[in-house]
């Protein structure tokens, strides 16, 4: 299956591209939003590159670029709410750092460390409801011994999950999320700190 990628300038996008190159899961097209630092990496993978000088999803140039793609499936590398009109154009794969039947929202990474000392990942198609899209794949990871959670652990595990999904579910067969999990967001700094302490203590060194 041919897949495109929407490159939002971020550590996560960079990590996705590095993993895709390393595992030879090349995107056939890419839309680079903003400054376009990832262009060389994409050219190395022979992807057709479209550059859009905007970092906003609600933008007519971004809309037109996505509409022009021949691929039906696009890897999403950003965060936040994706406008409805974009969701109507293509199917967007998003890697969510939590098992969506249990954990939804932006900080579930920390809550699952606090509660279970594990980190779940869900590959899903974006929908207009937060973390409620159809599920393509799930996996639960041990917590690595790295306290740089936001900038290293999160993008690394998401990138690994993306590759795992592209390898294990090549046709991207998905199923409906029957019962959405609780919504976790805006974690208090004290609880976040305790989660980081747990990573320092229990994290697994590979």
């Amino acid at each position: 299956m041919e897949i495109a990628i929407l490159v939002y300038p971020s550590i996560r996008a960079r990590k996705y591209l590095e993993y895709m190159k390393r595992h030879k899961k090349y995107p056939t097209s890419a839309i680079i939003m903003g400054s376009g630092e990832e262009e060389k990496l994409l050219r190395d993978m022979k992807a057709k590159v479209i550059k859009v000088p905007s970092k906003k999803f609600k933008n007519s140039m971004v809309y037109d670029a996505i509409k022009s793609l021949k691929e039906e499936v696009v890897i999403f590398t950003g965060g936040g709410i994706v406008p409805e009109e974009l969701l109507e154009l293509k199917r967007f794969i998003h890697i969510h750092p939590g098992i969506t039947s249990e954990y939804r929202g932006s900080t579930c990474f920390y809550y699952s460390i606090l509660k279970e000392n594990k980190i779940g990942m869900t590959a899903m198609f974006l929908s207009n409801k937060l973390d409620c899209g159809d599920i393509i794949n799930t996996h639960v990871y041990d917590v690595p011994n790295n306290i740089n959670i936001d900038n290293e652990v999160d993008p690394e595990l998401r990138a690994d999950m993306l590759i795992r999904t592209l390898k294990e579910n090549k046709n991207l067969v998905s199923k409906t999320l029957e019962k959405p999990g609780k919504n976790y967001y805006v974690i208090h700094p004290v609880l976040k700190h305790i989660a980081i302490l747990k990573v320092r203590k229990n994290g697994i060194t590979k």
Partner: protein
Amino acid sequence: MSYDYDGEKTYSYSEFIGEDFLRDYFNYRRGIMSRLNGISLEDYLRNYEIFKDVKSFDNCVTLSVRFLDEYEDKGDFRYLNASLKINDYLCSKGRYHNIIDTQLFWYVLSREINYIKRLCEGDDVDIWKLLF
């Protein structure tokens, strides 16, 4: 700053900790003013079932007690998180001398401290450094 504190028992502030500690803690919590990503505390709390029947937001401390009870019953960290945020809010909006019921306020804070201490058990952590 150091305090000798037995975290397993909930003391009233006049019994044990005293006003100096409570004032320090209050001022510390004023300083945190935890981020809510641009939404109001009320909007944030609407995600919680137990907030849905709350008509007034005037008595934050009592609301915080309900969240702590819920955390104790269910072990769901979202409730402890909500209590921490309510009390940050309370401290940031008010002045120490305006707290109507200091005993109740201390009761809530000491419960929070107990739970946090338990979460850190086995870790080589100075709880007071974490909290201050």
